[in-house]
């Protein structure tokens, strides 16, 4: 349902995406892994239309959405790597942002509090402002905001970074649940291999501006691909250079 075809993006001389091909089926959980600065976040932003690719196609249910009016975003939820919470609004209004501008306005606050609970936050947090929260709490508020309106496509940019191990498990379970129970389609970026194993149906590895390897989670430990071997094993020696 989401398909990237030969997507290129450069920032000046910095060629970030150099022909990304990726197919994400409806109702599946895809995890993107890859070194820091390889363009994982940029790829998601290209799909969302926040960054316009230099060339290539991005198909949503078969239609190219590059440069199209952003109406299709009604179906999306996005957790930004840095949270990107609105610091002028209290937590619950952040979470309920989309609901407050929809017919479900009246129940927005209750839904917001229920979603906060799902990401392990107490109702008391609802009336605080983002600046008063810890980094990990902000991340989880961002996650609650991403899932608040029950979108059918959700992107999570490093959902467990900065969380304690217990909270990380809670969030992994939540993402898995959203896919299996609600049937949402998700793309998750993570560096955390235990997250990959907990969340993924399929794994894609981004390297040097292209998808270096793509396959089902079961193949992750058996593949001969040297890049995957090095990345999954966390080895300093291998085809991926340590200085990038």
């Amino acid at each position: 349902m989401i398909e990237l075809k030969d997507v290129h993006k450069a920032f000046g001389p910095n060629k970030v995406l150099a022909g990304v091909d990726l197919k994400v089926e409806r109702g599946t959980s895809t995890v993107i892994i890859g070194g820091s600065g390889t363009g994982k976040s940029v790829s998601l932003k290209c799909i969302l239309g926040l960054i316009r690719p230099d060339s290539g196609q991005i198909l949503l249910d078969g239609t190219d959405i590059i440069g199209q009016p952003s109406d299709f975003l009604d179906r999306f939820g996005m957790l930004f790597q840095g949270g990107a919470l609105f610091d002028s609004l209290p937590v619950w209004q952040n979470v309920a942002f989309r609901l407050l501008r929809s017919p479900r306005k009246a129940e927005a606050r209750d839904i917001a509090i229920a979603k906060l609970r799902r990401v392990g936050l107490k109702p008391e947090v609802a009336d605080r402002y983002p600046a008063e929260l810890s980094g990990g709490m902000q991340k989880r508020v961002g996650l609650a905001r991403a899932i608040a309106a029950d979108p059918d496509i959700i992107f999570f940019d490093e959902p467990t970074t900065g969380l304690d191990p217990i909270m990380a498990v809670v969030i992994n379970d939540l993402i898995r649940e959203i896919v299996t129970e609600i049937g949402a389609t998700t793309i998750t970026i993570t560096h955390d291999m235990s997250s990959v194993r907990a969340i993924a149906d399929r794994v894609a590895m981004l390297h040097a501006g292209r998808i270096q390897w793509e396959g089902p989670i079961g193949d992750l430990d058996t593949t001969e691909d040297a890049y995957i071997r090095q990345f999954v094993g966390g080895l300093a020696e291998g085809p991926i250079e340590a200085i990038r």
Partner: protein
Amino acid sequence: MLAPLAALGRGTLAALAGLGHVVLFALSTIQHMLTPPFYAKELAQASLMIGYFSLPVVGLTALFTGGALALQIYSGGARFNAEAVVPTIVAIGMVRELGPVLGGLMVAARVASSIAAEIGTMKVTEQIDALVTLSTHPMKYLTVPRVLAATLTVPVLVAVGDSIGIFGGYLVGTGRLGFNSAAYLTNTMQFLEFWDIASGLVKGAVFGFLIALMGCYYGMNSGRGAQGVGAATKSAVVAASVLILASNYVLTEVFFAA
């Protein structure tokens, strides 16, 4: 040999391109202003922030300016025995020129900077991107309420400033220069025409529009990081101030040159 010319050309082209971007930004703002959805709560908040909270600084500016103006006109007028014009000139000077311009400049310092810093920070921390993913147009949600609020409230600020400035002149006139209180007021009212006041309010609306527009423009186009936001803030205040003074000349020419 051609290098200085080329540099000059490049500079001119860059300046024209910048101007083009600002004009496009202004047109887009107006277009979004006229099409739904409208964000009433954001408009109310922006009006409070821009209009109400600017009252003290605009009031103080006007008070001291009115007082100083009375002193200047008195001592200048004394050279040809025309001290009696003080109330009239203070009133006309305030409502036509100093009320809108000084009020506008003070609001520019206060508001263009804070808008640019706020929106610039939102840009840098991806809050603007987040708005887009939540199906909310940043121009409609951030720019339109601020520009509309400033366009509507700055004229009110100017009207308040005009009154306080005339009152400042009155205080100095009656307290320091020996004017009779009733005569001062009569003189103030007698020669003041409707268009004197209205022209100043129109100027206020234009200045308000420009102030918020510059704040939003530089905020939305802020560079990355704290440095980018700092530069955006500075540029917004400089651009708003220069535009106020330039448009003030043009408006004065249009209103009063005949």
